[in-house]
């Protein structure tokens, strides 16, 4: 029950965005993908979920060839956008947004749909007053919670979170991090979390992959990674994530 990318390469003209990337996602395991901006982490995630087309015979689900198709395979591998406000329809209320996949994928009757949607809202820590609001009436953190609840409503086998924290402020980042820990513990799904912030990945991921210039340059268990980062970029990331001396010490 794994999701694999094997020797996945994507180029736009002469710009090689991904070259020969291989990555395996395991069910009920969390993989962290870290890298500088523009290194191709989002492209990899989007190719694996069918947001952008991937070359044939590069993706495998349970060792079978897998064609990601946005409107059909969203319940197998699901992508969650970075900016929650842009990824939630401004025309629907939070509750309706969560009901969408429950109706379309799980074909639940209306009452059951609404009950489950309320449960999910509860789980991500939103109260009843939020359920009737539309995305632009919610704060960034609340939007991210709604987006997460919707992704959970799909019940995908693998969930890809693209920079789930970078649009949020520090306090909200911390709240969403602990929410994601809860999701990881309670839901039985494989997670791929993309981030450039090792501090949060350290709290969430079982293993960490580092990308640089369209390649995966290092992939290790989290504790091993922090103990002995090999690649130069990994070392730089670990160094900065541990660096938090106040300005007084600097001068």
């Amino acid at each position, binding site marked *: 029950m794994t999701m694999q990318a094997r020797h996945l390469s994507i180029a736009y003209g002469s710009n090689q965005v991904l070259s020969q990337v291989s990555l395996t996602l395991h069910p009920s395991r969390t993989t962290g993908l870290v*890298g*500088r*901006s*523009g290194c191709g982490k989002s492209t990899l995630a989007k190719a694996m979920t069918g947001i952008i087309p991937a070359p044939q015979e590069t993706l495998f689900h349970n060792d079978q060839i897998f064609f990601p198709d946005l409107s059909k395979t969203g319940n197998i591998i699901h992508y969650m956008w970075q900016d929650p406000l842009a990824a939630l329809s401004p025309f629907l209320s939070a509750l309706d947004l969560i009901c969408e996949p429950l109706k379309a994928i799980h074909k639940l009757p209306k009452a059951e749909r609404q009950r489950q949607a309320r449960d999910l809202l509860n789980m991500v820590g939103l109260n009843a007053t939020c359920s009737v609001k539309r995305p632009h009436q919610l*704060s*960034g953190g609340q939007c991210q919670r709604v987006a997460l609840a919707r992704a959970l409503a799909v019940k995908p086998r693998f969930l890809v979170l693209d920079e789930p924290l*970078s649009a*949020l*402020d*520090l*306090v*909200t*980042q*911390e*709240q969403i*991090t*602990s929410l994601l820990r809860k999701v990881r513990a309670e839901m039985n799904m494989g997670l791929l979390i993309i981030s*450039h*912030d*090792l*501090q*949060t990945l*350290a*709290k969430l991921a079982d293993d960490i992959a580092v990308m640089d210039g369209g390649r995966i340059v290092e992939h290790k268990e989290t504790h091993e990674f*922090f103990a002995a980062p090999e690649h130069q970029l990994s070392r*730089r*990331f670990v160094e*900065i*994530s*541990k*660096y*938090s*001396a*106040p*300005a*007084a010490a*600097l001068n």
Partner: protein
Amino acid sequence: MVEIPLLQVHNLTISNSAQNNEPLVEGVSFDLAVNQRLGLIGKSGCGKSLTCHAITGALRAPLAASSGSIRFQGNDLLAMPFAEKQQIRGTGIFCIFQSPGSALHPSLTIETQLLETARNLSLHGQAAHHALLQALEAVSLPKLCLKQYPNALSGGMKQRVMMAMALILKPTILIADEPTTGLDVITEHETLEALNVVQQETGSALLFVSHDLRIVRQTCTSVLVMDAGQLVDACDLNQPIAPDCHRATAEITGAMERLQL
């Protein structure tokens, strides 16, 4: 002799005239002294960016500063005629905004834009070029950037071009409004280092606006905390945070500690 602070914000209230003058920022007062590095933190939507826009005079129309004063070297910026404000902009107060992409002209090379800045200080020819190269070196940008257009540069590089501008202008007050939002941690680190260099070289007072106490700690010595449009707390970052601090401060420091490795 009692020194007059560079910037005195007194009782600043910003309201939205489109929505019953509902105040978005209320009664904010603080001083910024020469050579001080002051952080302004708070959750998103707490009004820190608005305060910053009010100081630079960039508030957009239904929003306006409805009361209070912002004194720069003793003169009230809010009551000042347009021409005089124009004098202060750039060399007096310089602001590095959240999105460097929209702060640079897309169809002029970096060199043209920096030379334009230098011309404001009546620097021409060789002298201007020299100042440019020095500024670029200080923020560790390659010389190659001069001939490029903004779209060829990454977010971090654009932000460093803005800092090079600050180096050329040597403003009395440098305002940085979330300068590292959207940058990855390594770029963020480099940008902050460049900002440190700029501050040390120009001797400007720095007002650093951010939601992230982790990076504010790297640049500032003291910090103001905003919550729901009001200034609720002021902390010295050299001291441990007092246990009797405001709820908002506790929330932010708590979040930082829990996220730290």
